[in-house]
């Protein structure tokens, strides 16, 4: 017909019965085998005319009748719908027919059958009742208009299931929140009446949607299999709409929505609570102003206390148990006391830093010298006093130390004992003291106490950590006044010239042997009365040099050092209690001889020298300072250069 030729813009597909017939010729084999490679070719042509089952909305642009959809609501019947094409005046509008064919087991039925019911499903529809419906069976339908096929479709019934909407929606109140603002409800419904769920023929899953009445967006819940779901957290003062739809299990297409259920929750609280979150501007302003006021008050306040409270100062380093103010105020005695109490701190006194700190020029501080030199204290026997005496501000002014070979002798003799027994030490100390005192301008402020010799571990060379620290007076205290005291009362300047003296030796008894300093020059003549020592040592050697070298010391005390060393048990360092030069004795010895005649400047020994090793607490090992030696004359026996000599050397 002209209609069909004009309408059908596509190639006519092969008539359907032909294909199935070809297949049916070999009923045993599956169709796919029977057709073999011919299938793709056939299908390629056929596919163009076939429509996907229930595709998207069709545009009836061509004016032909087209299938809109086929649908089975309960997996027992199905219906197909089509649009009535707009006939552009060609032919009569009627005569649209639907034919179907279905595959039985392995065969297609021979011919197309016409729709059994054009009426029940409405206009332009075809309704297949249960007797005509077979599930899991491929169907093909075609729409003809005046004999010409206008549309075709193939499907299986289980693929086109779209259930009717659920019925009988109702809700019940589950509970309300304590605040009376929210409530939970349970929504129930019935499955569509035509769906045989009871026999398990069809399984449905439901989707509930709800929203507030004045909202536009529906809230969706997850699909459920049961016919009731709880809806949580609905507001009591709002009205809600609820609707449910269902679909076959494991299908994609939902059915239509049910009727909307209106949920009006009872008003529980007479006074509706304003739950709207209003930004608490008022509170923010109040607290902000308060805070700012406080801040400004404190920051700009003159009150130090408040400022301290608000902006505490950075903590200063602190030693446990010691008030840092002590350091500031220079109360070294107290600090030392505290430190001495804690044995832990004792070793600190023997580190190099303290010594280095201790060694400083006292030229600029004549005042301090009047307060008494530490050397006095070092030589005093007063242990307690020694411990307490740290600073120059102490009352033991006027003490001096005596740089006398006697001291060495005394100490060495004391060391011979090996331990500091008072009996042995005392006479020696006495002697030493006498020797010391001969050069000493000891004040009587610190009466020497015949204290017990300190333990070997407490030579008393305790250094304060302050820069002004001076060596504590050793255990060797000032002996009781003797006749030696008489010469003690020498002019104080003598005693006070040297604030800092090097400790040349520390006896095992704990007494310290100071190296002769500048005061030697003044005080030496007095000590010349001690011939026993003087005879042993070269007076020149002693007079000018502030320090002993081990060579010189050996001359003075030929025996003792070795024993002393033996007692120490450290042969590597001879006479470790005295300063030990890095130079060998041999080298120093001849020099000592050559340097002997030089008066006043024979033995240049530096006042300050670096410490090589601290044999805590027994002694120190000093480094031989590397000084320029332009003149051999100025070479000390030990390589030390005194300041005078240094000044001579370097103009």
């Amino acid at each position: 017909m002209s209609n069909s030729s004009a309408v059908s813009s596509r190639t006519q597909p092969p008539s359907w019965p032909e294909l199935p017939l070809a297949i049916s010729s070999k009923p045993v084999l599956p169709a796919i085998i029977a057709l073999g490679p011919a299938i793709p070719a056939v299908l390629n042509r056929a596919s163009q005319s076939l429509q996907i089952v229930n595709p998207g909305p069709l545009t009836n642009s061509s004016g032909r009748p087209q299938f809109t959809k086929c649908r089975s609501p309960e997996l027992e019947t199905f219906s197909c719908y089509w649009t009535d094409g707009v006939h552009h005046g060609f032919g009569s509008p009627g005569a649209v027919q639907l034919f179907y064919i279905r595959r039985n087991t392995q065969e297609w039925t021979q011919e197309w059958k016409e729709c059994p019911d054009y009426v029940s499903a409405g206009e332009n529809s075809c309704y297949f009742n249960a007797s005509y419906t077979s599930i899991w069976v491929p169907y093909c339908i075609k729409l003809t208009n005046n004999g010409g096929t206008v549309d075709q479709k193939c499907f299986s019934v289980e693929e086109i299931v779209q259930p009717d909407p659920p019925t009988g929606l109702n809700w019940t109140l589950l509970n309300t929140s304590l605040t009376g603002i929210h409530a939970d409800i349970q929504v129930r419904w019935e499955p569509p009446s035509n769906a045989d769920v009871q026999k398990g023929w069809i399984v449905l899953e439901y989707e509930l949607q709800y929203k507030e009445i004045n909202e536009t967006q529906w809230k969706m819940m997850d699909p459920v299999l049961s016919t009731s779901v709880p809806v949580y957290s609905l507001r009591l003062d709002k009205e809600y709409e609820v609707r449910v739809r269902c679909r076959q299990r494991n299908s994609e297409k939902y059915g239509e929505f049910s009727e909307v259920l209106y949920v009006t929750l009872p008003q529980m609280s007479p006074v509706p609570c304003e739950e709207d979150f209003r930004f608490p501007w008022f509170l923010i302003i109040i607290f902000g102003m308060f805070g700012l006021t406080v801040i400004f008050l404190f920051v700009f306040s003159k009150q130090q206390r408040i400022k301290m409270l608000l902006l505490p100062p950075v903590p200063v380093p602190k030693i446990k148990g010691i008030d840092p103010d002590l350091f500031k105020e220079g109360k070294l005695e107290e600090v030392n006391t505290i430190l001495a109490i804690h044995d832990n701190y004792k070793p600190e006194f023997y580190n190099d830093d303290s010594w280095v700190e201790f060694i400083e020029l006292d030229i600029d501080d004549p005042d301090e010298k009047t307060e008494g030199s530490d050397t006095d204290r070092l030589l005093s026997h007063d242990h307690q006093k020694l411990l307490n005496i740290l600073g120059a501000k102490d009352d033991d002014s006027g003490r001096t130390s005596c740089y006398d070979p006697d001291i060495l002798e005394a100490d060495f003799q004391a060391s011979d004992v090996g331990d500091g027994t008072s009996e042995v030490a005392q006479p020696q100390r006495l002697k030493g003291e006498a020797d010391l005192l001969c050069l000493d301008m000891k004040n009587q402020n610190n009466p020497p106490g015949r204290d017990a010799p300190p333990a070997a571990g407490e030579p008393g060379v305790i250094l304060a950590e302050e820069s002004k620290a001076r060596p504590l007076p050793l255990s060797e205290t000032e002996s009781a006044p003797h006749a030696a005291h008489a010469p003690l009362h020498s002019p104080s300047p003598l005693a006070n010239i040297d604030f800092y003296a090097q400790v040349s030796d520390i006896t095992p008894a704990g007494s310290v042997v100071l190296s002769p300093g500048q005061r030697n020059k003044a005080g030496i003549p007095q000590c010349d009365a001690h011939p026993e020592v003087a005879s042993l040592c070269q007076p020149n050697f002693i007079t000018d040099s502030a320090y002993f070298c081990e060579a010189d010391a050996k001359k003075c005390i030929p025996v003792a050092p070795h024993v002393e060393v033996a007692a120490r048990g450290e042969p590597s360092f001879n006479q470790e209690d005295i300063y030990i030069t890095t130079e060998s004795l041999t080298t120093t010895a001849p020099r000592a001889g050559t340097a002997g005649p030089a008066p006043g400047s024979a033995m240049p020994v530096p006042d300050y020298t670096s410490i090589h090793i601290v044999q805590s607490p027994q002694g120190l090992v000093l480094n031989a300072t590397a000084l320029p030696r332009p003149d051999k004359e100025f070479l000390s026996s030990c390589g030390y250069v005194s300041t005078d000599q240094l000044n001579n050397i370097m103009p």
Partner: protein
Amino acid sequence: MDNKGLSLTGGPYWLVLVLVSSLLLCKNVASVPTCPRGAVNCEVPLGELFDRAVVLSDYLHKLSSEMFREFNKQYAQERRFITRAINGCHTSSIPTPEDKEQAQNMPHEDLLNLILRVLRSWNEPLYHLVTEVRAMREASDTQKALGTQETFAMQEALSTQEALTTQEALTTQEALSMQEALRTQGTPNDILSRAIEIEDRNKQLLEGMEKIINQVQHGVRRNEAPSPWLGLQFLQKADEDTRLFALYGLIHCLRRDSHKIDNYLKVLKCRIIYDSNC
């Protein structure tokens, strides 16, 4: 639901392991009605077996649908394999009820045996499906530079399978909860993984069905031959179009048959256990 916690990868598999072992070994686990140790003639309650079977069949159908959907999306879009109507399934030779009435009129044992027969018929095709899909994925992997779509489709098909395995051998309650968990968790989105999963689940469902039949028929067994599948040659054709078409047909048939079995089992469950009052 707190079942969502089970959706973690470890939970379901562990649970399945425990329950499968309990089912197979007839251990006396409190939550699972099983045989006491050492009992010879103990039987898991039929209702329990049906619950588990229904869960499995439902899961199988879900995976098959997803696999088909993904395959369609990835492979059939351009090729337009809209030939379902022509395509016959190899299980069509087995006379199965085609509507509710027929299904209701068929006796339990017949229907059960039919189910068993259909399941058995799918053993071989599923095996080849997995092989073929795996080969296709490997082939597509090597063609990644060419930007083939197959890899994605295969992956999607595979993922459905994995979700199936976890539903096996569970009690009703647990089965349902597992269902929920499986639905919420990400099912494997890979055609290959889905195919593997379906194959495994199919075997398990088969075992469950045999157990059910043993109980219903009291040991009387009918060894009915499964329907043969002859589509292997098409799956192994060199022509990609032919292969894809064959695969398409196979997956389509799988979806249909899984729906059929699922439906039958649910009908049987409602009939036998709940006396037609689900």
